[in-house]
């Protein structure tokens, strides 16, 4: 079949995004049924794409027998996320977490073990023990790549997906995208689609002003969120922004999970600890923010009290893994962990379920509200999923997609829709002059910082929304000189979509929740009577962006006495201090 002289490529299962969750989903689908055609499409190159491009230094949320139970984990994350979680999805993760560690271990991923050969778990969370270091974690991508090849997954690098396709019954039918080097469009028909395009990391602007200095890998710009929205899928809790504690001007975590277990901590200007627990939660970030703005600010990572060999151990991990340019950053400023504390700051805002809870709504099977469309990793809505959650939900989605594709015949494509999308893709390169994507991106992200970054204020967000919509009006002038700029031009359209979603979702929830993530100054209290719901964001019948409420599913694990544990983040000073 051809549309506009473009051959339609057929596959059984299509996975979009080859970072962390995507490769696991593709390999799982092949493991389930080697006869299926499984295609993995990636904007960059699966060898080095995504958040774990240079490896990772630990599992932040591992549930390992003997150290924690799935019930304890589900309870901790429910409390850390102020009650708004889909516990069945957390439970599915928690129960599969350990088998996934063992699977990765058997593939050659090295996790830290103690003298007895047991996993060397560390306590960073407020209540339980869930952090598993992997100081030799730099080869994760290589191991995944080997599995993709061995299982004969068909890999398409350097294509960016731009829109999902649906059949006349509303089931998923494939995608359309464009080659980032040639600007040639691609049309793929698939019986089931798994999206794993990561966080929406290019939403806010880092304080340095450098567009690509984001916490998240900047290839993750929210395309998946925008595509899911346009395909009619529900998104959930988008106002629960991701905001992370980072080094000032450097986008590496500071880092609670590596330095915390070795005695490092987050301190104020006087070298004093002010938060009880460094595990990343909205409540922790709120205390961080308050300290930053206070007379005892700014905030620092304190390591200068540690022994020489401990510092060397920290340097080895932090300067070779995950964000290995960190050492160069410190060198350039003459900063040595031994001599002084390192200034910290908060990251730009984004959507990310890996670290908070915002994303495309998915249940415990990885299913979205569009039949046949599954989502895994940072873009799906399962709270605090991190890297192991991306692997587990990649696996879950792989299984679910195979099941869905089983009974499905070749989907019918909507040619008129494809036609319109091809025109949208081709438009920016047809313009000889206009507005380059970089300028448009800078503008919309600067507006996100000015108007949407917490503390959130209603009137400011309304103005922000108005200004963001005004940028959208400029889209007919968006121009691109080459295929690379076209990639950025397609990305900025997703960024505008995400910015509008961020504004509307934040305006919808008229309470404060999740600490700093949705700290709404004119509604300062958490209001469980009105807002003990997931917020929904979706495209309504008229094509308008709409909001609604989704009830929180009955808890599988009651919270008991500890339900307010994450509200008590600030270190209490003794009365005589």
């Amino acid at each position, binding site marked *: 079949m051809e549309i506009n002289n473009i051959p339609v490529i057929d596959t059984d299962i299509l996975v979009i995004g080859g970072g962390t969750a995507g490769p696991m989903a593709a390999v799982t689908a092949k493991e389930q049924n080697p006869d299926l055609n499984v295609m993995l499409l990636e904007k960059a190159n699966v060898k080095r794409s995504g958040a774990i*491009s240079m490896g990772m230094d630990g599992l932040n949320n591992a549930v390992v027998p003997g150290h924690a139970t799935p019930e304890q984990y589900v309870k901790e994350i429910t409390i850390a996320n102020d009650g708004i979680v889909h516990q069945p999805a957390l439970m599915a993760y928690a129960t599969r977490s350990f088998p996934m560690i063992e699977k990765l271990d058997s593939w050659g991923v090295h996790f830290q073990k103690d003298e007895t050969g047991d996993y060397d778990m560390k306590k960073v969370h407020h209540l339980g023990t869930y952090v598993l270091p992997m100081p030799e974690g730099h080869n994760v991508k290589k191991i995944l790549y080997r599995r993709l090849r061995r299982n004969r997954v068909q890999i398409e690098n350097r294509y960016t997906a731009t829109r999902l396709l649906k059949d006349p019954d509303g089931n998923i039918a494939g995608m359309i995208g464009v080659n980032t080097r040639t600007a040639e469009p691609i049309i793929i028909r698939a019986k089931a689609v798994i999206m794993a395009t990561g966080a929406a990391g290019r939403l806010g602007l880092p304080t340095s002003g450098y567009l690509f200095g984001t916490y998240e890998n900047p290839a993750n710009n929210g395309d998946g969120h925008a595509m899911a929205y346009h395909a009619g899928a529900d998104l959930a809790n988008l106002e629960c922004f991701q905001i992370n504690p980072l080094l000032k001007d450097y*986008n590496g975590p500071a880092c609670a999970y590596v330095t915390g277990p070795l005695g490092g901590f987050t301190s104020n200007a006087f070298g004093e600890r002010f938060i009880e627990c460094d595990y990343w939660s909205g409540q922790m970030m709120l205390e961080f923010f308050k300290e930053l703005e206070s007379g005892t600010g700014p905030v620092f990572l304190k390591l200068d009290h540690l022994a020489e060999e401990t510092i060397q151990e920290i340097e080895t991990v932090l300067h070779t893994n995950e964000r290995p340019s960190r050492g160069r950053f410190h060198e350039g400023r003459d900063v040595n962990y031994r001599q002084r504390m390192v200034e910290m700051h908060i990251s730009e805002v984004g959507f990310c379920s890996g670290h908070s809870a915002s994303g495309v709504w998915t249940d415990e099977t990885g299913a979205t509200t569009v039949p046949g469309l599954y989502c895994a990793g940072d873009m799906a809505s399962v709270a605090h999923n991190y890297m192991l959650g991306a692997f587990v939900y990649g696996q879950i989605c792989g299984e679910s997609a195979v099941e869905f594709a089983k009974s499905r015949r070749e989907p019918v494509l909507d040619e008129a829709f494809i036609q319109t999308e091809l025109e949208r893709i081709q438009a920016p390169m047809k313009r000889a002059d206009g*507005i380059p994507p970089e300028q448009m991106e800078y503008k919309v992200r600067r507006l996100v910082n000015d108007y949407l970054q917490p503390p959130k204020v209603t009137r400011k967000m309304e103005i922000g929304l108005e200004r963001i919509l005004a940028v959208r009006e400029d889209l007919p002038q968006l121009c691109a000189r080459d295929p690379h700029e076209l990639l950025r031009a397609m990305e900025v359209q997703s960024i505008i979509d995400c910015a509008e979603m961020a504004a509307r979702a934040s305006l919808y929830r008229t309470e404060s929740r999740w600490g700093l993530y949705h700290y709404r100054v004119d509604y300062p209290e958490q209001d469980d009577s009105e807002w003990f719901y997931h917020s929904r964001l979706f495209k309504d019948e008229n094509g308008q962006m709409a909001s609604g409420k989704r009830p929180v599913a009955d808890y599988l694990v009651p919270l008991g006495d500890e339900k307010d544990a994450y509200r008590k983040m600030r270190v209490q000073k003794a009365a005589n201090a």
Partner: protein
Amino acid sequence: MPIANHHSSVPVIVDEDKCIADKGCTVCIDVCPLDVLWINEDTGKAHMKYDECWYCMPCEADCPTDAVTVNIPYLLR
């Protein structure tokens, strides 16, 4: 709206004496997640064409001849 070119200093440096792109190597170009490294038409060697770097370092780590150096972008330095 007319467009102007503006200069910017880029963080990634390729040592042209070491780079063997003219012998067919494209490793750094292949692995870069942001697709900002390209062959320089004038020299036949790899170079950073777009100032859109995550300073993540696969280009440097994977280069077979150690020709690539990733610096911190000037705005952050």
